[in-house]
C-alpha cells in the first residue's frame, strides 16, 4: 500500500513535469510558426518556480484560497484515475470498474472549483470568463459524451481498461479506425477542452485579459498552472486509451500522447476565435451530429 502511494505520487510528479514540458514545447512551436525564436522549452518550469516563490498579499476569502487547490486536485484526480499502461501494477493508476463515468465527473470538478473561487475574487472580468467557461463546457461535453457512449455500447463496458483491451490486436482495431465518427466528435470536443483557439473564449486575451484567474497571483497561480498542465496530460492519456489503443509501455504512451498534443496545437495556431454563442452552437450541431452517425450505425449493425 505504501509502495502504491509512493508510486502514485511519483507518477503524479512525472505527469506535472510532462505537462509543463508540453506547454514549453507548444510555446516554442507557436513561436517558430510566427517566425520568432521563442523561449526555451523549459520556460514553464522557470515560470512555475518563480510564481511559487513570489510573495502574495491578497485575500478575498476562503473560496479564493481553495480554488487553486480544486484545480490541482481536479487535474491530479483525473490523471490518477486514467490508466497509462493497462495491466501494469503501478502505471495503471487507480482505475477501477465504472471509472469512465467517474472520470467524466472528475473532469468537471476543477472547472467548478475555479468558477467558485474566481467569482469570489470580485474582479469584473472573472465572472464574465466563468460564465463563458461553464457555457463552453456545456457545449463540448455533449459531443464528448456521445462518443464515449458509443464506445461503451460497442465494447459493452464502462471501464477505460475494458475499452483498451477491446482495441488490442493490431492498429486497425483502434477505435479511431473502427469508430471514426465518434473519434472525430471526441477530437473536436478536445479542442474545446484544451481551450485551443477557435474556442478560446475563456481566457480571450484581447477582451478579458486572462480570464478567471485575473485576481490570482504568485503561488496561487503556480498551483493553477501545474494543475492545468497535469489535467491536459490526463486528457491526452484518456484520449490515447479511448481511441489510440492505449499503451503497452511508457515509450508508446509518450509517443501517442505527444501526437494527440499536436492536434489542438496546430489548430490553435491557424484559427481566429469564435464568439461564445457560435462556439456552443458549433459544438451542439456538427460534432454532435457526427458522433450520432456512429451511435446510429452501432444500433443498425447490431
Amino acid at each position, binding site marked *: 500500500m505504501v509502495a502504491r502511494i509512493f508510486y502514485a505520487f511519483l507518477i503524479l510528479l512525472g505527469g506535472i513535469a510532462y505537462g509543463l514540458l508540453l506547454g514549453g514545447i507548444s*510555446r516554442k512551436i507557436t*513561436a517558430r510558426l*510566427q*517566425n*520568432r*525564436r*521563442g*523561449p*526555451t522549452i523549459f*520556460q514553464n518550469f*522557470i*515560470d512555475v*518556480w*518563480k510564481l511559487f*516563490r*513570489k*510573495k*502574495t*498579499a*491578497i*485575500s478575498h476569502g476562503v473560496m479564493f484560497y481553495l480554488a487553486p487547490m480544486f484545480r490541482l486536485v481536479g487535474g491530479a484526480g483525473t490523471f490518477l484515475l486514467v490508466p497509462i499502461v493497462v495491466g501494469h501494477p503501478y502505471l495503471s493508476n487507480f482505475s477501477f470498474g465504472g471509472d469512465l463515468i467517474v472520470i467524466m465527473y472528475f473532469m468537471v470538478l476543477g472547472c467548478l472549483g475555479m468558477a467558485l473561487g474566481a467569482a469570489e475574487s*470580485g*474582479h469584473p472580468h472573472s465572472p464574465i470568463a466563468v460564465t463563458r467557461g461553464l457555457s463552453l463546457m456545456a457545449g463540448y461535453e455533449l459531443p464528448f459524451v456521445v462518443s464515449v457512449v458509443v464506445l461503451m455500447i460497442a465494447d459493452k463496458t464502462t471501464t477505460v481498461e475494458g475499452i483498451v483491451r477491446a482495441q488490442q490486436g493490431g492498429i486497425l482495431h483502434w477505435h479511431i479506425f473502427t469508430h471514426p465518427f465518434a473519434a472525430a466528435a471526441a477530437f473536436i470536443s478536445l479542442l474545446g477542452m484544451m481551450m485551443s483557439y477557435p474556442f478560446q473564449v475563456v481566457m480571450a*486575451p484581447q477582451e478579458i*485579459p*486572462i*480570464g478567471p*484567474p*485575473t*485576481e*490570482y*497571483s*504568485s503561488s496561487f*497561480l503556480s498551483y493553477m498552472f501545474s494543475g492545468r498542465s497535469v489535467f491536459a496530460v490526463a486528457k491526452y492519456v484518456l484520449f490515447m486509451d479511448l481511441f489510440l489503443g492505449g499503451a503497452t509501455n511508457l515509450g508508446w504512451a509518450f509517443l501517442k500522447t505527444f501526437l494527440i498534443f499536436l492536434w489542438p496545437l496546430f489548430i490553435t495556431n491557424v484559427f481566429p476565435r469564435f464568439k461564445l454563442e457560435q462556439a456552443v452552437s458549433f459544438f451542439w450541431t456538427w460534432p454532435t451530429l457526427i458522433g450520432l452517425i456512429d451511435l446510429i450505425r452501432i444500433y443498425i449493425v447490431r
Partner: protein
Amino acid sequence: MDKDKYFLNEKPGKLTYSGVFKRIDDWTRARSLWVVAYGTGCGAIEIRPTFTSRFDAERLGMRMAGTPRQADVIIISGYLTVKTLKRVIRVYEQMQSPKYVVALGACPINGGMYYDSYNAINKLDLYLPVDVWVTGCMPRPEAILAGFKRLQELIDSGRADGWKKYIENLDWYRENQKKIIKNWRMPNYNW
C-alpha cells in the same frame, strides 16, 4: 460604505529573501519577467514591436501579463501626468513582490520635453523606485531590450531591490506622492 472591506489597508510586513533557494530564485526571476506595460506615454508604441515577431522579447522569457497581480515588471512608457501618476502608484502597489520598474525615455528622468509643463512630473524617482532607466526620445525596441538585459543582470546578481527600498522608505515616498497628488482618494496602502 465600508472601504476597509474592499481594500487591504495594512502595510506589508518585512519582506526578506534569503536561504538556500535564493540563488535559484534570482535565476528564475531574471528569466521569467512578466510585464504590465503602462502605456500612456509615447513609448507605448515601441512596446508592441518589442513583444511581437520582429524583436520577440519572449525569447528572453518575458511575456505580457494580463493584470498587475501577475506581473513582475511595470514599464513606465514615457511622461507621467499627475493624474496618471496616481494610477501608476495604484498599479505598482497591486503588483506582488518582488517587482521591478523600468522607465522609458527622457521624460521620467528629468521631464524631457515636458520639463516645464504644469501637470507632468519631472523626476519619477521621487515617487517610485526605478530599477532601470532606458534613455532616448523614444528608445527603439533594441534599446528597450538592452534595458531588459540590464534588468536581468541586476536581478540575477540580486541587486534589483527597488521594491525593498520602496517598502523601507514608504513614508518618504508617500510624502512625495501626496505633495503632488492633491485629491488622494484611495486607500493608504493597496497591497
